[in-house]
């Protein structure tokens, strides 16, 4: 029972919650951008358009699924799946909360806590690149090919910077396990964003680039590459790419919440004067923090123009990676000298 049923139930709940969250993320994005642009956004389907994601899903499922005539049929079909799966299995190690008692049974609010949790996230995320590269290759079309070359170069470059910031967090926390990192913040008494502000900034910028979000969204720059790597996709396969992108956004914000914003901890866990906030369950804090992060993602998109490809690479290699290395070295020196 405890070995199989509860983990299976957890997986089921997390997967479904993620997919629903992703579809509503799309609605949230449309709404927030609409408000930023003094519009209303979707209003027709349901009150204030809250049923819009369902209508979108139905529409995408019923659409004709086109495979271009000279596409590589197998790879073309596999690419969206390859993009979607890593985005979903990352949730296995994300701690949404500490423990909860449900029907007299104590349940941990994460699917599993493995020793190499952070490394697992990084490695699984690195497999997600394949979806984009293969989509561009298999479409047998020039715009997707250009976009997939851009995307893979971008993802691989920014992965370096992001991973280096993660290493400095690991140095501070002394563990690769996501749960242990949160516990380290609990015992330290403050969130790691105050310990590692530079790492947080680099992680945020790198996260924007890793998820192909504005201002680094040139792999899918509609104005330049007519939609990027998924130009030739339609119907449900396009929807999978779309969902994967938003699922990745949620992953990035969850990881940022866990590593830098104290996961399920309340603000300032070290200050006992704020302990009245403990009534609020941990998972609520987690969701609120992730939501704030996601909101910033959307806000940035509504505000900023797009970088150019070479400028993006310059920022990645000449600014973020050196900064991340300096941050790592300084963290190491402080850790060895002072602590």
């Amino acid at each position: 029972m405890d070995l199989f049923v509860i983990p299976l139930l957890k997986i089921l709940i997390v997967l479904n919650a993620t997919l629903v969250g992703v579809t509503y993320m799309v609605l949230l994005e449309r709404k927030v951008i609409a408000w930023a642009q003094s519009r209303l956004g979707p209003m027709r389907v349901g009150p204030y358009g809250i049923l819009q994601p369902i209508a979108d899903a139905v529409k995408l499922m019923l659409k004709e699924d086109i495979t271009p005539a000279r596409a590589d049929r197998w790879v073309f079909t596999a690419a969206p799946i390859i993009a979607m799966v890593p985005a979903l299995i990352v949730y296995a190690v994300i701690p949404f909360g500490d423990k909860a008692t449900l029907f007299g049974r104590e349940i941990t609010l994460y699917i599993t806590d493995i020793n190499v949790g952070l490394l697992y996230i990084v490695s699984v995320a690195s497999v997600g690149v394949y979806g984009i590269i293969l989509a561009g290759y298999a479409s047998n079309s020039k715009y997707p090919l250009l976009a997939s070359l851009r995307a893979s170069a971008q993802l691989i470059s920014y992965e370096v910077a992001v991973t280096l910031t993660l290493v400095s967090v690991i140095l501070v926390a002394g563990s690769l396990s996501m749960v242990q990192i949160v516990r380290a913040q609990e015992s330290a008494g403050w969130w790691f964003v105050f310990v590692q502000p530079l790492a947080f900034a680099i992680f945020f910028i790198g996260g924007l680039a890793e998820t192909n979000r504005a201002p680094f969204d040139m792999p899918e720059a509609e104005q330049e590459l007519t939609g990027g790597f998924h130009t030739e996709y339609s119907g449900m396969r396009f929807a999978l790419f779309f969902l994967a992108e938003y699922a990745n956004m949620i992953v990035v914000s969850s990881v940022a919440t866990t590593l830098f914003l104290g996961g399920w901890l309340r603000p300032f866990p070290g200050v006992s004067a704020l302990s009245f906030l403990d009534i609020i369950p941990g998972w609520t804090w987690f969701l609120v923090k992730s939501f704030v992060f996601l909101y910033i993602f959307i806000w940035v998109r509504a505000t900023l123009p797009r970088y150019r490809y070479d400028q993006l690479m310059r920022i990645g290699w000449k600014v973020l990676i050196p900064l991340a290395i300096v941050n790592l070295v300084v963290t190491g020196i402080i850790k060895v000298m002072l602590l």
Partner: protein
Amino acid sequence: MFDTNELVLNMGPQHPSTHGVLRVVLRLDGEKVVDADVVIGYLHRGIEKLSENRNWTQIILLTDRMDYVAAATNNVGYCETVEKLMAIEVPRRARYVRTILCELQRIASHCLWLGTHAMDIGAMTVFLYAFRERELILDLFEEFCGARLTYNSMRIGGLPQDLPPGWDKKVLEFCRIMDGKLDEYEELLTHNRIWLERTKGIGTLTAAEAVDLGLTGPPLRGSGVPRDIRKDEPYAAYDEFTFDIPIGTAGDTYDRYLVRLEEFRQSLRIIRQATEGIPEGPIVGKVPRLIKPPAGETYHAIESPKGELGYFIVSDGKSTNPYRFRVRPPSFCNLQGLRRMVKGHLVADVVALIGSLDVVLGEVDR
């Protein structure tokens, strides 16, 4: 990129940022543009030839369809050319109204340019902001002539009808609103680091190059050449107002952007002066019942939002339609600069440069 082969990329005619049906055949080395071939003609409707079979008043309607985002300017240019051919004196009130309409149209056209240009570079919010203000102008036009896009708002010798009552108040109110909105656009773009990186040093043209390529309007002024027909060869009532001609220094995309933004302000200045000083009087001059200009030819140019919009008309003096009708479209001439500008830049810059030239394909192909 490693590949030595050049990639030939067909940008358009169906592409989200070629502003209609422009086709640019790019030869790419990686993402760098080695050469570009601009292919036009997808929107050719034969307006010039068609005009030779229409009478003089019917042509006004055709000129609407050239630069369809600045139809009033086209109307004014055409009517003034015919008036010049027939030597008709236009009443002062009509000339004032023409000036107001032209400048409103310039703001509307620049709004569209700003929105799409910013959209091409990825700033999607500016697009909707700019279109929101363009809507106010379209409302003003709708009140004046009943149409929102193709106005047919001019007649040879004057105006089709007088201004609706209270219209001038609304224009002044619009000027007040627009002042604040311009600051809003500037806040989003002018000092934005990403915007600066995307536009500075992109598609730089020196003054000599710009003149050689035959550019006019903001692309020419962005390169530092103070050429503006409103000042150099005043038409309508421009000689009665004070305004400045903004010019750029570097001649890059950013300078062209700054020039157009300053033109917004100068246009508002002209509109204010004109609306406040609008004289009473007739709106149509002495026009014969049948418009039939004497034999001869004439060329008359005005400053459209895109540049020098010139009409060359030949009349044989016998028929009620022109013998030859030719337009010098600013978009067409400015587009010639594209090939020179995109060389050595990246694909992403191509869309920025097309936006920066502000071409309307309806006018390029006619």
